[in-house]
């Protein structure tokens, strides 16, 4: 195994006001410029959260929490989040990526908006406890936009990548992916998607009915966010943001929030892309423009 470096890779046992959790730092590597990455698990009451912390060589000027989208959308965005975290560290900002319960390397359990929000709070608590009371930014992609908006502390900066603003449309997209996948595999397309199901198999992902209910009932527009500075990055080939996003931005502005909407060209069919040619997941791993835009926004206009 790679030897740890930097001298502070010992396990950290931290108390949290949220409950009994601790960060277990398992291994750390350091890049040529001194920026470093630590991977490990955060022990929470819900189970172990896998986390990766990216830090600058010196004391950071702020911290950022990166909330991943769940289910099929997670892997599509993973490397972008990795790249963003690495770039932030080089810019003097420490960040944490994590896998919510029921996803990735973390403990088993149902994945809902509620559970993801709890996990995000635990992750942010660990991050802040590790680096001190620094300015905070929270990044959330797709469904995790709601999680990020809930998690951001007062005065923090919020970044939303291709946020889900219409929960009903999201649920329809998920079920449409389910039907298309079923048809492609020779089924009727109606199997496994009844109203009584607790979990629906969507291209190999267990979608909790509770999650879809939450998404439908709690649109992003109704989330009370403590942030007063928001960047929305739309990923679309159309060149213009969705009308619903512009409406939401206008609503936030009326509430006194500074909102910036950016557009990057990317072929993002988040769920349908997971049922690509031959059933293999075709992931657009580049889309570096989103990383560049957010990096510029956070480093130049962030809360630090």
């Amino acid at each position: 195994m790679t030897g740890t470096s930097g001298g502070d890779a010992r396990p950290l046992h931290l108390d949290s006001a949220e409950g009994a959790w601790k960060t277990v730092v398992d291994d750390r590597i350091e890049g040529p410029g001194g920026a470093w990455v630590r991977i490990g698990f955060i022990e929470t009451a819900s189970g172990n959260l896998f986390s990766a912390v990216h830090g600058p060589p010196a004391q950071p000027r702020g911290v950022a929490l990166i909330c991943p989208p769940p289910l099929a959308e997670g892997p599509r965005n993973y490397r972008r989040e990795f790249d963003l975290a690495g770039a932030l560290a080089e810019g003097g900002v420490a960040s944490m990526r994590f896998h919510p319960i029921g996803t990735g390397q973390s403990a088993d359990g149902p994945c809902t908006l509620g559970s993801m929000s709890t996990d995000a709070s635990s992750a942010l608590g660990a991050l802040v406890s590790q680096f001190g009371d620094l300015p905070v930014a929270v990044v959330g992609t797709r469904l995790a936009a709601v999680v990020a908006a809930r998690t951001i502390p007062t005065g923090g900066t919020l970044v939303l990548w291709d946020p889900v603003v219409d929960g009903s449309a999201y649920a329809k997209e998920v079920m449409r992916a389910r039907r298309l996948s079923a048809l492609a595999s020779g089924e009727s397309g109606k199997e496994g998607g009844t109203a009584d199901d607790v979990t629906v198999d969507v291209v190999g992902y267990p979608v909790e009915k509770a999650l879809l209910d939450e998404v439908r009932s709690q649109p992003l527009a109704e989330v009370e966010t403590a942030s007063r500075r928001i960047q929305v990055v739309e990923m679309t080939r159309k060149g213009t943001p969705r009308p619903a996003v512009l409406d939401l931005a206008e609503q936030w502005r009326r509430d006194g929030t500074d909102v910036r909407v950016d557009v990057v060209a990317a072929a993002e069919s988040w769920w349908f892309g997971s049922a690509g040619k031959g059933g293999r997941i075709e992931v657009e791993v580049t889309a570096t423009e989103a990383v560049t835009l957010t990096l510029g926004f956070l480093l130049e206009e962030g809360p630090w």
Partner: protein
Amino acid sequence: MVTAAPPAERATFVDSPEGPLAAVVTTPPNPSDTGVVICPGGWYGTSTNRNRVVVRLARAIANLGHTVVRFDWHGVGDSSGEIDRFVLDRPFVDDVVAVSDSLSGAAGRLLVVGVCFGGRSALAAAPELPSLAGLVLVSFPFPAEQTKADWRARKMGWRGVANVATNPELWRPAARWATRRLRPAPAGPKARHITLTPGSFRADMGALRQRGVTVDLVFGADDLELVSFETLRQGPLGDYLERSRPGIEVAITDRGDLSSFRSLEAQDTAIHLITDIVRRRV
């Protein structure tokens, strides 16, 4: 019901020529002398694969008493490095060897499970794994056009080959394969070019048999890879595979796609099947 992850699960970085690879080691309370490495498929997410089927497989195998490590390919997930494409003739041997070596201190015997491209890389790395006791190759990816073209040429003789040469419908697949072979290497600078042919596969199997290494080939009924494998099994590899039992075994599920795990049922089937193989082989 929420169940916590195994308490002895830890994340680590493994040194490799391509840079540090992110890995998670699951250790049971009283580990056996067998370590298991799970090589993920060739996709760009993480080692977890779809719906973290690899995570669940690792924990199921650890419940049998073996230490298990799963990892991200270089340039993927939490690992360092860059990646362009996954190419069968450029398996990630260095990644497999590095992760396997990291287990050598904890395990006397090694069993490597590889999914699709992971199986291809595991097979290519086998000569460099002295403690290897078994390979489980899930949805092993034979190049379809190549296997068909080779088999047809042998079956048909020169007259048949001449007929194929005058029929574009028959030679186009072989031409496509040859074109791909001529492209420059797209993978990282240290990716090695190791050609995969029916002949090389058989030679690899022979070498493993001589070492006493068991091989289990596992396919789902809906795998694209199964088409290529069946072509070979009905042709040049059929007798050989039959004679090589029980050292080399083949298992095919009734339904489901085990290369992309596009249904929860296929995922559960794969986990049960592979866990049973590990239980039987170790």
